């Protein structure tokens, strides 16, 4: 029934899913784990406050990835952050401009922003024009964002999600207009750029963690505790593999992987 070579893979998947489910239930029962504070989350209030003081907008982008591709999970994490930022913008009366790359993100973005401004206590501030869409061409997307940065000079530039090459232009324009730059993507090739250029960078899986830190949602926090246990399992597997290779029995591990 299960294809050859994928059986061990499936077992690892099921073990991880079981762990996540167990820790989510545990957290829902009231036993919340400790999560190391993420600097961006700690400062989010003052970042939005800075934009309010300067009277300039905040620009938000979820990057190239959408909800229909392999980067959907990153996009979802970005949208979760957008909903929180929208709430804070509603609270401090700051214009939040969300530029999306996918057409179907327009109604989702508008919904998130509308709800955020309502939660923040200023529903009158919301406008459908807060969500921009310029077609699904990366060049057009980048050109629009560069133009927006030059004409509106946002106080804060945020990009969270499956960011691709547009990150270069984002980072460059943020530095050029003096915006506080907040970036986060688990995509490999952009980690160094983010670490070097962004004022607040969510490196690797921190993007997923950020959502939990913001909301203090037991489900999120429990799943993060489970992630730590999953990492221990992965480290144990790596150790076993290293030992197997070094004692001259690599087939022990390769056999298991190919099962």
């Amino acid at each position, binding site marked *: 029934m299960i*294809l050859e070579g*994928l059986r061990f893979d*499936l077992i690892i998947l099921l073990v*991880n899913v079981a762990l*996540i*489910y167990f820790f989510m239930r545990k957290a829902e029962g009231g036993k919340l784990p400790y999560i190391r504070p993420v600097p961006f989350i700690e400062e989010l209030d003052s970042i939005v406050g800075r934009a309010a003081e300067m009277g300039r907008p905040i620009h938000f982008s979820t990057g190239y990835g959408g909800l*229909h*591709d392999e980067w959907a*999970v*990153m996009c*979802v994490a970005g*949208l*979760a952050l957008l*909903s929180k930022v*929208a709430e804070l913008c509603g609270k401090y009366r700051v214009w939040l401009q969300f530029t999306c790359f*996918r*057409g*179907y993100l*327009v*109604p*989702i973005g508008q*919904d*998130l922003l*509308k*709800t955020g401004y309502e939660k923040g206590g200023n529903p009158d501030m919301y406008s459908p024009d807060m969500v921009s*869409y310029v*077609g*699904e061409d990366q*060049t057009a997307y*980048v*050109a629009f964002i*560069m133009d927006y940065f030059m*004409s509106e000079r946002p106080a804060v530039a945020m990009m969270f999600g499956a960011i691709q*090459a547009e990150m*270069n*232009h984002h980072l*460059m324009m*943020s*530095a*050029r207009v003096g915006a506080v730059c907040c970036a986060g993507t*688990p995509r*490999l090739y952009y*980690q*160094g*750029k983010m*670490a*070097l*250029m962004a004022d607040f960078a969510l*490196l*690797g*899986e921190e993007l*997923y*963690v950020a*959502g939990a830190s913001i909301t203090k949602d037991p*489900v999120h926090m429990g*799943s993060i505790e*489970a*992630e730590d246990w*999953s*990492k221990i399992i992965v480290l144990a597997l790596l150790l076993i593999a290293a030992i197997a290779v070094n004692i001259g029995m690599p087939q022990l591990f390769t056999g298991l992987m190919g099962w």
Partner: protein
Amino acid sequence: MSVLKQKEFAIILFVVPLLFILFNFYTGIAGPQATELINWGAYLWNFSMIIGTYSMFRKHLLTITERQKDWPYSVIMFVSFFVYFITGYIHTPTFQWIMDYVQTPIMMTIWVGAFTTFTMVFRGARTRNWLGVLLLLSTVLTVLRMAPIGEAIWGGFPIIGLWINDVPNVAVMRAITIGMGIGLLATMTREILGKETHYLGE
């Protein structure tokens, strides 16, 4: 409440395709149906082009009628759009000429990757702590490894650059990949269980 924000709708939208694709991945059963499901993304994409065109026309028409800032650019947008659209159907050589001598150079101007990266680093690189200094130092050593001038200055630059690339760089990339994969799995599990609703504004 918008239909998109209803939890049941979101669960059907994400969970059913996800479970179906997972089932197909591990068993190989119902391959064509799974492929068809993935293709629906492409169908959605086509609809989104309609929304995009409407949004673009609305924005630029408003800019022109209200004589907003930089409104002549909106006129240029309409002229370009219609010229490009019409020549695409009635005169392919002109279309190709526009593509080769107008659009491609404009795109290249935006996508001069190395120059963009260079200006990005020049404008915004910060050495706020010792980790930043370490990162910049590694970057310089890697550049000296790749550029012929590095080896001309000192024969050790290529060796150090290669070591940075093969040892610390690969180790960090693998660690990030593992963390990313586990995070992805956790988010996927939350979605399958209907617990991930923040993207719906809840």
